């Protein structure tokens, strides 16, 4: 697991939607990023929309994952006081987990006996 962990530079608002995170976010929260927030090819979030998208992603992730025991241990207040790069890392990892879960769910639905 966690190949390359520690090798990647810390995430920033500008880099967050690179590294596959944009497609993960679109897959997990299909309506979260409005088409007008994306560039012409749909491959990147417009620079002036990045913070909007990150804020709504944060809220959405806490809505969905706030019940997770380890996030509860951390607490929203502590989360909000973390350095931005750490908050972004947690968000990216939460989205990856949600993606893996959605893929598993789709597989299980398709293979229901």
């Amino acid at each position, binding site marked *: *697991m966690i190949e390359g*962990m520690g090798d990647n530079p810390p995430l920033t608002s500008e880099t967050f939607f690179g590294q596959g995170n944009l497609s993960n976010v679109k897959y997990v929260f299909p309506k979260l990023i409005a088409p007008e927030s994306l560039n012409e090819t749909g491959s990147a979030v417009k620079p002036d929309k990045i913070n*909007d998208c990150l*804020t709504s992603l944060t809220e959405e992730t806490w809505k969905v994952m*706030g*019940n997770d025991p380890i*996030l509860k*241990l951390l607490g*929203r207040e*502590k989360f909000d006081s973390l350095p931005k790069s750490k908050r972004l890392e947690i968000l990216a990892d939460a989205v990856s987990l949600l993606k893996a879960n959605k893929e598993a769910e789709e597989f299980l639905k398709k293979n229901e006996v």
Partner: protein
Amino acid sequence: MLNGLVPEGAQPVVKIVAPEVLHAKPKSKPAEVNEPTFTKADLPATDDSRKALEQIVEGDSQVKNEKTTDSVFDNINKNIASLAEKINNNQGDVEKAKQLLGALLKTRERFYLSVAQAINPDIKPVEGKPNVYQVGEAKIYGSVIAVLDATPTLKSHQVLAERLKLKSELIESTSVMGENLTPRKLIDSAIVFSGSSAQNRIQPFGADIDMAEHVNIKAKTTEEAGQILAQSISTNVDRQTDVADSNGNKISLHFLEMKAGGNYPPDAAIELQGQKLRWSVDDIKKGYIEYKKSDGETTKITLEQACQQPQMLKVDYVGVTDNTVVEVTKVSTVIVKDDDGNMLIDNSSGQADAYQEIYFDDPSEMGLLNETSNPENYLNYVKVFVGEMKKYSQPGHENRLKVAKRMYNLLKVTGDLALSQELSNVFSSDAAAMYQLVDRLGMTESAKKVGLDVNHQKEIMIQRLRDLAEKRNDDQSKNFLGLLNSGPDLNIEEMRKMALGICNQEVTVFMDAHPKIKDKFETITSS
């Protein structure tokens, strides 16, 4: 099916449990609080933008549905259990199910790590070593699941671990075309702390010191491997080993016995059949055990022969410190390969250890990456722990403290960290301390057998037990106190039974006061 985890027609064990945090933690706002994580200055100030964001949030029906039915946390656990069930039942596309299970475990572990590091910044990934984490600046390592329960103080045991490690003085000297190649070690080994010894953050009263050793040997034949291993054991084992840890605490280890080579050979006398070969220091040093055959003749089995098929290789010591007596155990997994990589000896149990082991050496150097996101390891671990929880819940084997320990680990790997933390409180109870002390009093008998005078340590432990029993003031503890004060010749076996009864009662009361834990326990053990 994942044995025991998902009973037919029933909900999976990892079913809906709304976790809650009972520990005193800074009060945090509920997750629903709609406060931007990125400060207002980061946001476009117009109301239209804010509205648009709200619409996006409100408009995501998937999220709404998940909130009103099961949480995502529950869904993840259910999906893990369902995938495990499909794999175990060989149902449908098993390879795809394994791949998805692996991805789910891997991403969940990564998510845990990033949140766990925010809670405890001492947990750090080791640069360039996937799967390996360390605790603080201490050079102790493990999987993220394992390091969650370790504290840097475990590092102080490294001296002890190093002393007990199997080493080889034999250096292979190879010469090719008259040119000497760099000599290499024939034995490589790493010692780890395992079981509750490796969980010193949550288990203050572990009964003994458990170590697991991973031994890699390079040999041309099984016979040569037997020689190398036997010689290493013979060199390594001493009647007495005195060690001071890095904090200056002294422990004196006295050899009790070693098990190696499985049972007595088939030609052994009837009374020896099915008995394990138990080696004393003298047997090891002379290199054989003499035994009686069924025809009345005496013969011997050599240590080298035993080492060719070591089966369970386990050494027991009694460790004596200034104020206590403790059992110290080392179980060795031996892997022998020839130069072409063919396996000659492998006595590994196949059990997944990476969830609990704490290494003193970088495990990747021994090829021991802690692959806790591996579906096979996960399934195996869950299966073993569910089985043990059931075993220790049965009459005749009933030991609820052991059940609680297994359940703690099971909750951790099934993702219920908050519930596991809640359960861990039972490990620091007075009853758990009493159980530990009685167990250690039992070790004073073993110490006596090897000629040690441990009366001083015994007195300290008895006084401590007396204090704990007086403090509890329930009927069972009063009876225990009566037994403790009944005279100089303590009936340790009776004390053990009574301490076990007190512990069973303590865990029962604890579970009654923690219905979510009790529900989970009942679901698992009745599956």
